[in-house]
């Protein structure tokens, strides 16, 4: 399972914290558990809890509290557009609307192939380079700044292609 598959990574993560404070490794371990499917399975929560000697409810609490963790199946990629005040002052809301129109979905929806979800999020600390968004997948996060609807749409198209090939390789969901 998860614990066996990533035993090296888990050891590396655990080594960052004092041995009697294993619990501190819970956040990086959840990222690790989310790597393949972009959400944390109940089984993974149980395994993380066992590794750290805490209860699976404790792990679930952490998953629930932080917004970058998911406990349900979602899209392969999440395009998260910052529409907070400074970005909104520079047209982030119009950008988001334009992008969604271009993709034919509404904010918070996933493209029909299940590859990309577009959502509005809170400040991403790139206020001077709005409109901007980040793309989250199991592999991590990347920033895309000073965007136009066109540049974003072509990126989404690329993500959809990638998601398709990922699924062919047996990853994704």
């Amino acid at each position, binding site marked *: 399972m998860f614990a066996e598959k990533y035993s090296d990574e888990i050891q590396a993560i655990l080594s960052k914290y004092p041995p009697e404070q294993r619990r*501190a490794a819970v*956040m990086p371990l959840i990222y690790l558990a989310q790597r393949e499917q972009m959400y944390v399975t109940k089984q993974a929560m149980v395994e993380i809890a066992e590794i750290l000697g805490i209860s699976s409810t404790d792990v679930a609490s952490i998953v629930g509290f*932080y917004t*970058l963790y998911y406990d349900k199946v979602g899209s392969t990629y999440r395009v998260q557009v910052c529409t*907070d005040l*400074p970005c909104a002052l*520079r047209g982030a809301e119009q950008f988001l609307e334009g992008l969604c129109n271009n993709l034919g979905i509404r904010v918070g929806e996933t493209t029909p192939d299940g590859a990309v979800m577009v959502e509005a999020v809170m400040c991403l*600390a*790139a206020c*001077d380079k709005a409109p901007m968004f980040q793309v989250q997948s199991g592999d991590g996060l990347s920033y895309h700044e000073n965007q136009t609807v066109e540049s974003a749409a072509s990126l989404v198209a690329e993500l959809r292609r990638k998601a398709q090939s990922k699924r062919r390789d047996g990853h994704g969901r």
Partner: protein
Amino acid sequence: MDADTGLPSQSQNGQYLLLRHRDTPSIGELEVYRRLGGFEAWQKVITSMQPGQVTDVVKTSGLRGRGGAGFPTGMKWAFIDNKNWPHYVVANADESEPGTFKDREIMEGNPFQFLEGVAICAYAIQANAAYVYLRGEFWQLAAWLDRKIAEMEAAGLLGEKLFGTDYSLHIYTHLGAGAYICGEETAMLESIEGKLGQPRLRPPFPPSYGLFGKPTVVNNVETLTNVPLIIEHGAEWYRSLGTEKSAGVKIFSLSGCVERPGNYELPLGTTFRELIFTHGGGITGDRQVKAIMAAGASSALIVANEEALDTPMDYESVPRVGAQLGSASVIVIDDSVSIPWLINKTMHFFKHESCGKCTPCREGTFWMMHLTERIVEGSATLEDVELLQDVANQVKGKCLCALGDFSTEAVLTGIERFRPDFELAVAGSAVAN
């Protein structure tokens, strides 16, 4: 370079102290950083200074926390409880305040100066481990810092028995996962410990009860990045920058309705006018500046009149126009913006980010969001505006941490200083003017 003293001077003339990558784009390379004198301060403190001396220098320099509260940094270090061991350093890189984006640029461009600052702080309090808490969105940045830390370890700048002494230090990164509240220092400590990022009761403060219950110094990235310079060039030099009570340089994050948003490294005490019009290129389009938020979404709304524009940006002067300097994240609002719309934006943010631990913040932000929503939709009455003001006052001063109070700043000052906008919104129109 100052011709008389040979010490670095102001950034305006093309020389940066914190954003040094703007002068030397390759300063993120270890070789380049070392060639330019990097890590000399680090070597100096370890090989020739007592921990207490380091703290004293920082104290004398007048450096104040750049994260928002402006607490004297040296004093914080001196508070560390020396009866309880081990000690920890936590660098606050959870930059999540709308309008703040300076730490990211420092860490991306000038990582070693920051890490050197972390290291010097660790030595000053004799910590053997330091954690850099980055917001989860800084995923790539964390990987970059991990590489930089590895390079330092390979070069013998971090690790065991540094420079032939018995002192050892490890720096680790720790990624958050999307929670603004983790920027609050005790919530951040909880988060590193693997718990919900909810603030702790204070006292006890981190210097006596911090990470894993041990004495801990929590400093902002920008604060720590100043430290190598202070050690290298001396406290007096640092004091000579900025104003009398607000020493040093500061990075001002300029965003909103300006031509050239971005980070500007300027001495404390620069006026709003200079920042917005000289550096920021003025207001976009043909608009007038209407309001200024000096500390991101948490700030009071400053009415952008002539007096306000001429106010020096330092910890003492900004309160004179009814606001705080905070993290110096200046959001410029032009006259096309409706203030109710603006506070609805900030309320959404605070409601989303309230951790839920204490009642006034949890319920108050939720309620205020409903009210601002109705006001913006035009389905509210003036009574609702009064109610909004009431609710904000009800939240203010009753919360466990500062987030709840912050959430009321824009609301209260908005209603007080931009009342016509609310009257118009209630009447179904958008902008006053």
